[in-house]
């Protein structure tokens, strides 16, 4: 056991000291932060461009009603100028020309001409201005016709905005607010993280084994330690490297996020929020303003209701056993082959279930109760990804226990088989190894 510890330490230090590890580990949070910063930056500085839009109002209704908004300015023009502009306005100060036809009331359409691609916001802003004006105009006419003095206020009061709050009843009969979106996000993210790490670190174990075999140091090593000790040390050491990486990412990620936020200052963050919300707010300012603060509370509430300890436990469990299962198999592949091409061929059948499980991750996250979700989360080779995708939605206890039990059983079996292949394969050179050959090795007696 001492020797396993020694190998574990050696593997861990070797990998953690590697330049590529340090660079990747340090770079990823900064890359993510950079992306985050870029998004904020772009959304703040998005529309600082001044646009001057010429408005030719044939209907004559809108004069003075088109206030400048944001960086967009509106200038009313006469017919002569409009005819001149319609033949081209590259040289002029105008970004675009808005033509409001005389029959806009009946046709519900206007025209915006530009020589550039018109941004969505500008398009949306003009539509909103036009519609609201006509709407208000029609409304005020009706109010005037009806003769009811406070009809305006009463109509305003009819405005309603319903927000649907989804509740889930737990086994204890307690209703908790749940969010499908939240569960979906968590489910997809966790499935993907498991897939990514199992694949990446399993491949790392495989390459490590191949390196030892190819450089021929393996014979010296296994004259000092048992192949199983070597394999165990390698697999656990590499797992610790993965955990170190995750830990650094979490810590750095949090630090960097705070850094970005303070760099852009709270006002900047608020401004970003506003610029995103702007459109909706303008449509229904009263409703939005009251809902906003509650929404944040609601999200926190829903995260709290996701049953975090349970999810975390499942994550660690499936991560651990998924990794053990696949890294021992990939280690065995690394021991069985002695060149890269063969390893490519051999590793595919081994990792195929893993790839399959990432392919069904989306359907599972969408319908966590369906037969696909059920079977993939019970079958051990796909369960680490598939079951985790279901966990945020809540899984019947018996299904979870069955899945875990099968996974543990399979992992033990896989480790035993892998150890055997590993032991035989390590000193086997120049032999083309295929699945049939490996099955033969499994039948060898000790």
């Amino acid at each position, binding site marked *: 056991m001492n020797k396993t510890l020694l190998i574990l330490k050696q593997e861990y230090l070797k990998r953690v000291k590697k330049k590529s590890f340090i660079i990747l580990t340090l770079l990823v949070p900064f890359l993510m932060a950079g992306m985050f910063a870029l998004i904020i930056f772009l959304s703040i500085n998005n529309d600082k461009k001044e646009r001057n839009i010429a408005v030719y109002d044939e209907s004559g209704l809108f004069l003075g009603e088109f206030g400048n908004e944001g960086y967009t300015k509106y200038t009313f023009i006469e017919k002569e100028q409009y005819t001149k502009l319609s033949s081209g306005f590259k040289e002029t100060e105008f970004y675009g020309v808005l033509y409001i036809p005389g029959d806009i009331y009946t046709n519900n359409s206007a025209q915006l001409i530009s020589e550039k691609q018109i941004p969505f916001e500008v398009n949306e802003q003009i539509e909103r201005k036009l519609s609201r004006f006509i709407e208000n105009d029609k409304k005020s006419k009706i109010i005037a016709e009806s003769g009811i003095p406070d009809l305006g206020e009463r109509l305003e009061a009819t405005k309603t905005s319903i927000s649907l709050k989804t509740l889930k009843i737990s086994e204890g009969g307690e209703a908790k607010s749940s969010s499908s979106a939240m569960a979906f996000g968590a489910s997809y993210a966790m499935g993907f993280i498991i897939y990514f790490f199992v694949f990446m670190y399993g491949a790392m174990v495989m390459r490590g084994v191949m*390196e030892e075999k190819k450089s021929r140091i393996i014979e010296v090593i296994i004259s000092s330690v048992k192949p199983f000790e070597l394999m165990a040390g390698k697999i656990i050491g590499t797992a610790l490297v993965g955990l170190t990486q995750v830990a650094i990412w979490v810590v750095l990620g949090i630090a960097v996020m705070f850094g970005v936020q303070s760099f852009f200052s709270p006002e900047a963050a608020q401004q970003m929020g506003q610029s995103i919300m702007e459109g909706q707010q303008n449509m229904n300012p009263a409703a939005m303003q009251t809902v906003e603060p509650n929404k944040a509370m609601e999200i926190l509430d829903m995260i709290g209701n996701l049953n975090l300890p349970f999810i975390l436990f499942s994550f660690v469990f499936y991560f651990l056993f998924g990794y053990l299962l696949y890294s021992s198999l990939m280690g065995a592949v690394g021991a069985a082959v002695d060149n890269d091409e063969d390893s490519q061929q051999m590793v595919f059948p081994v990792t195929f279930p893993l790839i399959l499980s990432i392919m069904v991750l989306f359907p599972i996250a969408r319908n966590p109760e369906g037969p696909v979700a059920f079977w993939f989360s019970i079958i051990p080779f796909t369960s680490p990804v598939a079951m985790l995708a279901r966990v945020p939605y809540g899984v019947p206890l018996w299904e979870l226990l069955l899945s875990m039990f099968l996974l543990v059983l399979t992992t033990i079996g896989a480790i035993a088989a892998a150890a055997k292949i590993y032991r035989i394969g390590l000193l086997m050179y120049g032999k083309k190894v295929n699945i049939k050959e490996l099955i033969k090795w499994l039948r060898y007696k000790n």
Partner: protein
Amino acid sequence: MEFFSARNVNKVFADTHALTDVSISVNKQSIFGLLGPNGAGKTTLIRIINQITAPDSGEVFLEGKPMTRADIGQIGYLPEERGLYKKMKISEQAIYLAQLKGMSRHDAAKNLKLWFEKFEIMSWWNKSIEELSKGMQQKVQFITTVVHQPRLLIFDEPFSGFDPINTNLLKQEILQLRDNGATIIFSTHNMGSVEELCDHIALINKSHKIVEGQTDEIRARYKSNVFEVKYRGDFDKVSRALSGQIKVLDHVEDKRGNQITVEHYNGKSNNDLIQALIPVAEILSFEEKIPSMNDVFIKAVEDSNQNQKK
């Protein structure tokens, strides 16, 4: 005194016998040559001693006790196919390998320094194996084999990849290791070095041990009544004097004197030969021709192959 022995070891791979009932016995502080053609089973036996593979039947003993996993730290093994971690620092991996053999990090570093100083390679301490030439790598590999002060050393073709100067250096080191108390099993095809180094040999052919014994004794066993005589005189006269009694296999004439190689037969003795020569030539030297280890090897293997055919 016996230090190591293998008793009735059998090993079968799939359908080929790698070792059939092989026993060897190695004396303490001796150098034991494990010889045999390619594919005879030497490497399998070596791997069994190292507990890399287990025998189907039979056992290996260290100082009379069956070897256990704990004895592995007492062995230093230099395999025929060598290699070290390419990217790891030389000192670091040598210390790591010694630790795997059960040495403490501190002792390993201390011993390693002594060896590096002895081989005058302290400047390689922080280098990686990739930066060294093949011959230099072999030196490092040799050091990693002995740094944990093993009591049983197993060298598989230790001289391959060494130039004559380094081969000589290595031979001196091996002899010194023995004099300092180590017992050495030595597998090679280089028969010159076997004659020079080995006290004892075993010859394995097609999974069977066919010859075992002290090197001198085996060579003597394979002598075939052939003698070399140096003399001053005329070859024709000598030839006539010997005809009918003693067979002349070969003769060489040069400025320093003539030489004949003769074989006794018909029960003639050395004295008969000398008596026949005295009248016709002045005898300068008289020596029984002992076969080289090379001759023994070829003869023994051919005989055994022929016996198997019958």
